[in-house]
């Protein structure tokens, strides 16, 4: 089911790490997404925006396989997710990391144990090494070492996001999925988080798929923005390009009072 205007996978120089075609997802009744196509290119930071209920989180969850879809294909690193054996699927799972909106930290484990889970479970590393690596990731995510022994219920919202990011990045994934990473952070924390993602992208060569509503993040760190609406991707492009796009919601979003001061050339 290829709705794409170009062949999935390659487009000139760019290599698609994720390429979804004809995605249709519905929960009892009207579909939330219908015939949606989207590509994520290697090394880019893709922002996904859309009004409430347009299926941003649904799209993210569908790509990582948490929601069932009624139609469409998803290729990750050029491999069709539906044609994979369980083992291949698990291997792919190690190459992506997910930051859930609420962090989804395991409440009965400490911060260090939370981040150590992927090392212990997937890599079967000895405890000492797993602890050291987990601690390294925690510090990379910008947390002090003394946060290691705390439980998730003792952390602030910003710290939870950082620990969740550290866990998502534990195995040095190729792609990270971020669901509203800066929501609920103060502007300083949000700006630090943006810089953190940019820095990690350049050192680790990450590809980032980010659902967000934070205009500052969109302007500062995304290479490309995809706008969801009418159950599909309405348009994609840079912030400056989208400012000129003629669609009521897109115009209201990118030229509204909060977006006005972002001017380009």
């Amino acid at each position, binding site marked *: 089911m290829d709705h794409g205007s170009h062949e999935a996978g390659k487009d000139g120089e760019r290599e698609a790490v994720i390429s979804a075609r004809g995605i249709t997802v519905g929960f009892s009744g009207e579909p939330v997404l219908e015939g949606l196509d989207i590509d994520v290119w290697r090394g880019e930071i893709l922002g996904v925006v859309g009004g409430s209920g347009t299926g941003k989180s649904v799209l993210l969850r569908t790509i990582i396989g948490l929601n069932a879809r009624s139609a469409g294909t998803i290729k990750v690193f050029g491999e069709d997710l539906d044609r994979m054996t369980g083992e291949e699927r698990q291997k792919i799972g190690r190459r992506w990391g997910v930051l859930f909106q609420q962090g989804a930290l*395991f*409440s*009965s484990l400490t911060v*260090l144990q939370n981040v150590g889970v992927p*090392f212990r479970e997937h*890599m079967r*590393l*000895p405890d000492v*090494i797993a*602890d*050291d*690596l987990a*601690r*390294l*990731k925690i*510090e*990379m995510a910008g947390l002090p*070492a*003394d946060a*290691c*022994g705390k*439980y*998730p*219920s*003792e952390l602030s919202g910003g710290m939870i996001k950082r620990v969740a990011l550290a866990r998502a*990045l534990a*195995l*040095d994934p190729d792609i990270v999925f971020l669901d509203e990473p800066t929501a609920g952070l103060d502007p300083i924390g949000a700006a630090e988080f943006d810089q953190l993602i940019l*820095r990690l992208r*350049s*050192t*680790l*060569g990450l590809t980032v798929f980010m659902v967000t509503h934070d205009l500052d993040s969109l302007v500062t760190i995304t290479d490309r923005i995809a706008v969801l609406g009418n159950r599909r991707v309405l348009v994609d492009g840079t912030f400056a390009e989208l400012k000129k796009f003629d669609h009521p919601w897109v115009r209201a979003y990118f030229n509204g009072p909060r977006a006005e001061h972002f001017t380009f050339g």
Partner: protein
Amino acid sequence: MQSADGARGEVTVLGISGDWTVETVGSVLADTSSKVAPGRHLVFDGSDLGRFDTAGAWALIDLKRRQEAAGGSAELKDFSKSATSLIAEVDPLGRDPLPEPERVNPVTWTLEEIGRGAAGIVDDGYALLAMLGEATMSFGQLLLLRRRVRWAALFNNISRASIQAVPIIALMSFLIGMIIAQQGGFYLASYGADVLVVDLVGVLTCREIGVLLTAIMIAGRSGAAYTAELGSMKMREEVDALKVLGLSPVEVLVLPRLVALIIALPILTLVSDLAALAGAWVVGLFYIGIPTDVFLDRLKSALTLTHVLIGFAKAPFMAAIIGLIASVEGMKVKGSAESLGEHTTAAVVKAIFMVVVTDGVFAMIFATIGI
């Protein structure tokens, strides 16, 4: 992963080759720990490096730090640009040792736990009394018509605690009635007194077993549900939201559940009594051979109203105990999923224990006043 080394006077060149990633870091570290050369200058040559990630960078830094700690020096040479930037990113991290977890003396720990447990019993008593007091106050407000009765919540809770529990209570009591009748009949038959099975089952179930079994079942069913509901509301700050809105969590959340249980348990006790008698009747008719008219006649003379009422009299008290314990435990839940499980377990265990204790206390009271 292999490291080829060659000594050049004071300088040792250590070739870093193969993959240094999270998959290989375990064996890489095992391999390289022997390469630390005290007093020498170690040069890591990265020209032959394969795949490299944060874990690999950390392993390299770890090796470098150990070399420096052993009194030597180290430098990195010919690493690719991306590897260098990754190493630079990792280099300043993980320097201070992690705070050691406090060591505990097993003896003091055991004594502390015993002390905490004992103090916990007292605290539980206070908490139960406080909850009872607050619930009574709220109930009083309702009776004085100062507050609105939450009919929807009340009926919803009654339905969940009683109607939905009827099938399982009826089935369980039916089986228990059959078992008592079968066992009793077996022994009484040897005295030729098998018709006394009706007395046995009638008095035993209506006075004791019916209400006790029902209360235990409800403690496991509704008690656990209440603790889990209140606990997860506590975890998600819903209870705090009620307080901030100027509402009493006890009035809004606890009272409808408590009243529902107090109404539901006597009803379920009636169901249980009838089902147990039905079970006994079936066994009497087909296994022991007591005709229906004899069964009913015998039941009429043996089972006085007093026996039945004694059974029912206990039900509201047991219901209140189950409801209060479940609510108190629910309100004690802290942030983690583990804590929710812990308190739900505690609620069921304490409620069942207290139900049995209550039954014993009632038995003593009734024995004293001679009924």
